[in-house]
């Protein structure tokens, strides 16, 4: 069974990796770009271009093993997402984990997530600083999953190898900031993204356990390929410096108390890259590596033995005494997946060019090649100044319709020249 799962995961990844070669080899890479490309979980502050629709498929795999629950487990997930630009500054998304944890040797349907994202409406052109806000509603359908030490209930809440899972309905809000360095200096095609999010369960039993998420990523965004490194953290809100105490009823009827210190929250450093193909198809690969570390009691055989001994005979001379005195009844260990591997394929179902990404492609192409003596920024600045002056003069004498016609004529010419360059 395990080998079948690995074959499924590997087959999906291979299909995703091989797919771009089937399409889009003739057009120029980088000519079609999505405006909202992020760094794995770290989201971009821009929205999908108005009228554009992008679909993506993501395969995730990792190894995680709890000997008490069986043999070595290869865990394959499959996610699908559709993003559509509603307005110039607003987009909607529908995401689903189609294949989640296997239960009883069958894959479970994971969840469904519906979201809306809005950005400050100054995204007509490349912007140095960008802000956005997103709100998502998620509905989880999985009730059974691999859990750390069996710490999960029947409603689908609990600690999985990926972190804390929310069962039932939940809301997820996120504030995004992005600094796009190319907007200020075309020699620096870098992007910095910072996200801060909050997740709230709509189940009354879990109102007391809202979670925050923090992501920061820095990456090179090129014409054909992107690379990035990101840091990702999620944890329970905690109004004290002490570890957060969590308690909920398990299927057995017991209601143990766990303590989760800050370093025990799931935190990953993520390395990733993206390759862009002619028709806009992108193929991305991400590898998150776990940074979390254990504090206090652990779930190793020796750790459990020492903790339970301490619980039955509290003695201040030995470790874990303070934990037991604080009311902790079960050791917690950040026994999350140490590494994951993710492959994502993104396809433009309906594509509308946006001015900002057209400008980006232009600047990146301009900077490519051997002649690097031209200061494009300085020249663009001068051109803008000249254009502003000329527009002032022209609008004084020309009717508005003529100005619009002139603008469309220029636009058509840019498109024509661009096609000529691509053909060459």
């Amino acid at each position, binding site marked *: 069974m395990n080998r079948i799962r690995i074959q499924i995961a590997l087959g999906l990844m291979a299909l995703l990796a091989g797919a771009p070669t089937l399409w889009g080899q003739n057009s120029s890479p980088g000519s079609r770009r999505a405006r909202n490309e992020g760094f794995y979980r770290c989201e971009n502050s821009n929205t999908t271009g108005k009228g554009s629709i992008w679909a993506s498929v993501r395969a995730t795999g990792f190894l995680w093993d709890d000997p008490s629950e069986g043999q070595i487990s290869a865990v394959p997930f499959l996610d699908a997402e559709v993003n559509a630009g509603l307005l110039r500054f607003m987009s909607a998304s529908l995401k689903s984990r189609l294949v989640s944890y296997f239960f009883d040797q069958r894959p479970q349907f994971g969840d469904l997530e519906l979201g809306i994202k809005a950005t400050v409406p100054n995204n007509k052109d490349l912007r140095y600083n960008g802000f956005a806000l997103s709100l998502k509603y998620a509905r989880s359908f999985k009730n059974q999953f691999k859990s750390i030490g069996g710490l999960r209930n029947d409603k689908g809440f609990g600690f999985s190898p990926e972190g804390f899972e929310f069962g039932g309905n939940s809301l997820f809000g996120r504030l995004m900031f992005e600094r796009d360095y190319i907007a200020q200096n075309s020699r620096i095609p870098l992007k910095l993204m910072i996200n801060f999010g909050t997740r709230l369960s709509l189940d009354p039993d879990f109102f007391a356990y809202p979670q925050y998420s923090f992501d920061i990523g820095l990456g090179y965004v090129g014409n054909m390929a992107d690379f990035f490194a990101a840091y990702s953290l999620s944890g329970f809100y905690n109004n004290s410096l002490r570890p957060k105490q969590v308690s909920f009823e398990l299927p057995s009827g017991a209601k143990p108390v766990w303590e989760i210190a800050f370093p025990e929250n799931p935190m990953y450093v993520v390395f990733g890259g993206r390759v862009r193909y002619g028709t806009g198809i992108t193929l991305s*690969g991400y590898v998150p590596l776990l940074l979390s570390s254990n504090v206090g009691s652990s779930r190793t055989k020796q750790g459990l033995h020492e903790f339970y001994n301490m619980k039955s005979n509290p003695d201040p001379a030995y470790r874990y005494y303070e934990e037991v005195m604080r009311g902790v009844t079960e050791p917690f260990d950040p026994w999350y997946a140490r590494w994951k591997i993710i492959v994502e394929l993104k396809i433009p179902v309906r594509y509308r060019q946006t001015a900002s990404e057209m400008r980006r492609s232009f600047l990146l192409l301009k900077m490519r090649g051997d002649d690097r003596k031209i200061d494009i920024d300085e020249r663009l600045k001068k051109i803008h100044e000249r254009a502003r002056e000329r527009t002032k003069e022209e609008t004084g004498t020309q009717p508005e319709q003529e100005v619009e016609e002139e603008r469309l004529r220029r636009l058509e010419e840019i498109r024509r020249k661009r096609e000529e360059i691509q053909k060459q």
Partner: protein
Amino acid sequence: MRFLFCFWILVGLIHAPLSASQSVARGRNEGTLSIPASNVVGNGNITAHTHVRAGYGANGPTLSPSVGGMIGIGGVLQAAGNFELFSLQSTGLGLLESHLQATIPGNDNFRFLGAALRADLYLSTALDTISATSDAEKPDYNPYLYPSIIVDFDFLAKWKQVPLKAYLFASMADNPQLLHQYRQVSLISGLEWKMFQHSVFADMGIGFYKEKATRLNRIGDKTFQQYYAWVQPGGRYRLFRRFSLTGGFRFVIRKKLKEQSSLHPALAEFSVRLEAPVYFRETNTEAIRSLVFIEQSKEKSDVARSESMPRLYREVNAGFAEIRDSTETFDYSKEKQDLIQQRKEIRNKMEEIELLFEGLDEEVESE
């Protein structure tokens, strides 16, 4: 496994016509079996491979088939991945590894000295039950990230009569599945006689091992107390001018192992690797290499017809002759001038676009 094997073969065959016009689909990063070249694959090029290793050591027979691929990014970078489908000796699952290789500038020229820095990420599938934070009740599968260096010398770039390439490779992983137990240093050198399609090579390497402090061995080794050295002669044979079949036989020539908790290296190992270019565009480096061979073949064509020459050599020269026929009109200096002219035209057009950008601040709707 059969499904995957068939998949990669199918992918290779589907994409075969894409580069049918190429004379020989020779990747820029082709090295020996144990050392990749310092060059990275062409921008956007994709290569898939399958690799089978079978050996015998103190722990009995070993077998590890793997599949993987690589992609060239931006002309100076290459991302590669490899997944070992299963391993007879470990828990049954094989290693997952990925490498990001960055080479020094001049990658697209036919260079004599090349060097590359590689980030090696090993996602171990070996059950770690001995490190400080794990045991049999709470096993871990750890990731390891290490750097490695590749240096190579392409003698053909200096002396047109010597198609010899020398490689040096240093990394911090000799057997990645033992990284949870040992600190490792691996040094490999290789020589390759690189012909138009095929090549022969010999690698020689040494792996040093230092046991880490674990729950079972709280002190660990103070120095690299164990090592083993090996040699691996082999060759590359190109099928249908496109698929590359590389094979080699590795055997241990010298070893120093501890008496207690010693290593169990494979004493002899046979490896076969099949590479298929999935998406291939010829690079300048390899085009120049081909031109050098074509030039040489003019001088050697008479010799090539001689019945006394080995069959392989005759085949190589027949290949040169075929290419020469198809590239008779090729004029390198003219091509270069044309390229310079085209570049100038593109530059002029871009400057025109710059001017046309004036006042453009509306979203462009096209297509």
